């Protein structure tokens, strides 16, 4: 039996197993962390596809477009517990969109765009990337990553694909949930 009866002084706890466990936890989180999620927070419910692949590492110039339909019930400005800013934001969205319209959100732009606004944004982005590539459009390697909500109308998704091509982009990937 352990004798703890000695008086005075400190018992030295063995920190090694604790350190081992913490390092193992650390290793688990380091392996499974995905910092790209910052771009992905937009309440988009992605469709499911069995033939999909895990996300490859994306190029820094890749453009992520989130797309979902406007649903008026989820944008009630008078709902309880909303901040003044959120109420104001919802009122603006209500004025701008009709039910079923496609709402597009891209990184570093803090408002929802109509598809027609996305057209100008895509063109501006491509022109910028082209300038970065020394004016040669064929050297622009950026990929469009389209994260469309499962309930988005196909017409809106198709329009975004078409506008991407018209702007000059040549590659597109679709965000999905993959199942095995």
């Amino acid at each position: 039996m352990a004798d703890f009866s000695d008086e005075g002084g400190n018992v030295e706890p063995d920190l090694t197993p604790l350190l081992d466990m913490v390092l193992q936890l650390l290793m688990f989180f380091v392996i499974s962390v995905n910092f790209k999620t910052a771009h992905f927070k937009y309440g988009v419910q992605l469709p499911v596809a069995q033939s999909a692949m895990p996300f490859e590492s994306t190029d820094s110039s890749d453009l992520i477009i989130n797309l979902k339909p406007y649903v008026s019930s989820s944008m009630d400005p008078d709902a309880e517990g909303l901040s003044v800013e959120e109420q104001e934001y919802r009122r603006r969205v209500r004025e701008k969109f009709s039910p079923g319209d496609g709402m597009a959100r891209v990184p570093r732009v803090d408002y929802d765009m109509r598809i027609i606004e996305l057209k100008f944004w895509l063109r501006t982005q491509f022109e910028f990337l082209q300038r970065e590539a020394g004016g040669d459009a064929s050297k622009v390697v950026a990929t469009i990553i389209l994260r469309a909500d499962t309930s988005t109308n196909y017409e809106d998704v198709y329009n975004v694909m078409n506008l991407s091509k018209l702007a000059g982009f040549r590659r597109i990937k679709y965000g999905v949930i993959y199942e095995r």
Partner: protein
Amino acid sequence: MTTLRKRKPDSQDRASMAYVTSMLDLAFQLVFFFVINFDPSREREGEMQMSLPPKEEARAQNPQDVRDVPPKTDDIPPLTDEYKVYVDRRTDDDFTIRVENGLVKKDFSRDQKKQGNELEEFKKYLTEQYQQKKEKIEEQISDLPPGEKEQKFTEEIERVGVRVRGSHNLNWGSMVQVIDVCRQSGFTNISPASPHDKPGGDD
């Protein structure tokens, strides 16, 4: 009998303890950071690659858009064989599929209320079609040397395309289901096409 011996830590022990403690502090801070940023729901998010709409599809919808047409890009080579897949919305989750290949037309549907899911039939049909095309190409290139054979096969199979057209109000989720089946059946050249129930959308 085990006893925990108590002894006065010497200067070397104190130094090593201080080292372990600070390391543990740092490790805890890192663990806390990763716990906060950990989002298991994102782990299953993936990507599906597909061609952009073919060249003839990227047409201007309004006259003022004509100047937007970009300089010539590396468009996909012309198809030797094409499957046109039309997907029409019935309800949020149910839809019908019509496949046209030359004069051959087949209809399928997905109805959750019915017992039989014809999406499986659609997959079976496309898989058979893919196998037939594959065998035909393999027969055509059987005289080529092995190195060239693989390259030629890839080129030829890429020229058998599946063009998927949805109705304008079809859910993107339903469209992805159909495209997913096309990919699983073996086809690689799959491209979305304009909604077929809109003016100028059908061919």
